[in-house]
């Protein structure tokens, strides 16, 4: 999508405008500094930390389709689960446990599944799309349940054995190795996602989200673009799933459950959609709160997250980051006379 010069508020030179948008800001270093600092401050919590990083990758993949392309799905766990099973089965049945290639294989399977299902499903919208994504994910889960010989069915897939990273760094009980590994993967995924959303392709997705009829009218191949981003997103979810399988050495049916699809959606919305870093903040807040509150009282946690959702939907449409933006804008407005 090209911005017309008549739109007010833009620098006349489009190049400068986009460079200013895309340029790295200092604040963007913050999450990474926090992630690295967390390793030294909470070395005992790195198993949780690894799961948080994996969940961030998953939420980031959802942000690409939900926050940018406006595809509302209740079945994104299908691709996470497909990746987890692919990576797990590669090790359990074929004996291949090299972590990076096994994880990429998970991503590949996720992407392939995303391409196939996206090609069919993305012709629908609204409630029908919601139901189709939901049913597809559950169908896949039931399929995994029935294919007991391959997936272990209800009992879960066991016998996953992952080789040391780079043939050197062993898996350790505290999850230190996997924390760095997951952080590196997250950084790579983030770079890809950031590049995509700032590209002309990414801008056209925002256009589709904003007004699909107009995008059709100006000749955008809407379906093709949606399938493309859906495939990328599913691949990223598959990578997250692969990492999940490797770090737990165990895969159960709940990797594809409706609960997981719902949870990732909630995490992303809490943080804020369509802004990449929302996936970071929402996931951390959700999982840390869950870890702390669920220990006290599971009902309290469940009620709290429900209330939080209602509040976010009614009063904080941009999630926590959106609220932060509003706060900053308000403070700046106050500061200047």
């Amino acid at each position, binding site marked *: 999508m090209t911005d017309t010069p008549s739109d007010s508020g833009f620098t006349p030179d489009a190049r400068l405008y986009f460079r200013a948008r895309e340029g790295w800001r200092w604040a963007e270093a913050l999450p990474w500094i926090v992630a690295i600092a967390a390793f030294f401050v909470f070395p005992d919590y790195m198993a949780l930390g690894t799961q948080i990083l994996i969940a961030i990758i998953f939420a980031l993949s959802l942000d690409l389709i939900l926050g940018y392309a406006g595809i509302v799905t209740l079945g994104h766990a299908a691709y996470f689960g497909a990746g987890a099973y692919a990576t797990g089965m590669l090790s359990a049945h074929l004996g291949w446990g090299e972590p990076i290639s096994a994880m990429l294989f998970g991503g590949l399977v996720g992407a392939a599944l995303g391409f196939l299902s996206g090609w069919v499903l993305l012709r629908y919208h609204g409630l029908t799309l919601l139901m189709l994504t939901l049913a597809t994910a559950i169908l896949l889960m039931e399929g995994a349940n029935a294919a007991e010989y391959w997936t272990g069915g209800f009992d879960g897939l066991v016998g996953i054995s992952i080789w040391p990273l780079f043939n050197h760094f062993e898996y350790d009980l505290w999850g230190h190795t996997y924390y760095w590994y997951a952080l590196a993967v997250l950084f790579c995924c983030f770079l890809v996602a950031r590049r995509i959303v700032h590209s002309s392709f990414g801008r056209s997705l925002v256009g589709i989200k904003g007004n699909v009829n107009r995008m059709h009218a100006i000749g955008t191949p809407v379906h093709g673009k949606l399938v493309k981003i859906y495939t990328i997103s599913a691949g990223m979810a598959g990578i997250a799933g692969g990492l999940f399988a490797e770090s737990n050495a165990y895969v159960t049916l709940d990797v594809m459950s409706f609960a997981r699809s719902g949870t990732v959606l909630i995490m992303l*919305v809490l943080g804020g959609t369509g802004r990449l870093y929302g996936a970071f903040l929402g996931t951390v807040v959700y999982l840390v709160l869950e870890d702390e509150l669920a220990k006290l009282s599971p009902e309290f946690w469940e009620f709290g997250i429900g209330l939080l959702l209602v509040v976010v939907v009614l009063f904080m449409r941009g999630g926590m980051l959106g609220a932060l933006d509003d706060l900053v804008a308000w403070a700046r407005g106050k500061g200047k006379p």
Partner: protein
Amino acid sequence: MEQFAKAAISILFDGVAYAMLLFIISVGLSITMGLMGFANLAHGAFAMLGGYVMVSLMLKAGVPFLLALVLAAIIVALISVPFERYLYRRLYKAGELDQVLLSIGLVFMATATITFFFGPSTVSISVPEFLKGQVNLGFGIFPAYRTFTIAVGLVMIVALWYGFERTITGAKIRAAVDNRRMAQSIGIDVDRLFVITFAFGSGLAALGGGLAIEILGMSPTFALTYLVFFLIVVAVGGLGSIRGAFVAALVLGIIDTAGKYLWPDGGAFFIYAVTIGILLIKPEGLFGKA
């Protein structure tokens, strides 16, 4: 051969009873979704609430079964009114995402609240004597409670059909489902219709929830466990279509029951495959309006 026929009839009977429950609970969702375009994932929570209101009435206040069933429906219908007024109404024009999130949030809160007061395990009630044991229907002997459930379902269908096709309010609702702006412009108070339909749908769900205690079991996870089934009935049947909800519930109920008997591991697989197939061919559902 006779053995086989007996088993088939028994499965069919259980399936139909299950289908009636699905229909009673889902039809309200179908109408509200058709009318207001609201993806209400919390509909099952009203059914669950109905079940628990009924349990409380029977165990704490000693209200008899049939009266408790009716009271539960009325109480939940009243409880649902402020939800429509103050929460749902704000999001009628919002996208599906906001609606889904709001209603999921409500489901979580309902589940937590009910777990807090009633505990996480399944609750049960004692049904009156005449609903226990078997009943001879002339063409076979069937469990009395399921026979009762089917009877209630059939009565509801006739009542709903009459209400929608033969009363002024029904005509107004049909008009508003078909074309809301036009209905508004000829002077139909659509806002009032929204409240009435929402309360009525929630009340029906509560009735279904009360009936379901004995057949499906009632626990705080009820709303989430059966959510997908209610949504499938609505989506496959077509939004706002009573006939569609009935046919979809029947198909789903019978297939699911038969699947559980005949192919316990993969029975559910079949349902989702059928659902996806129907939606791919008819995105608006079997009896929905394109």
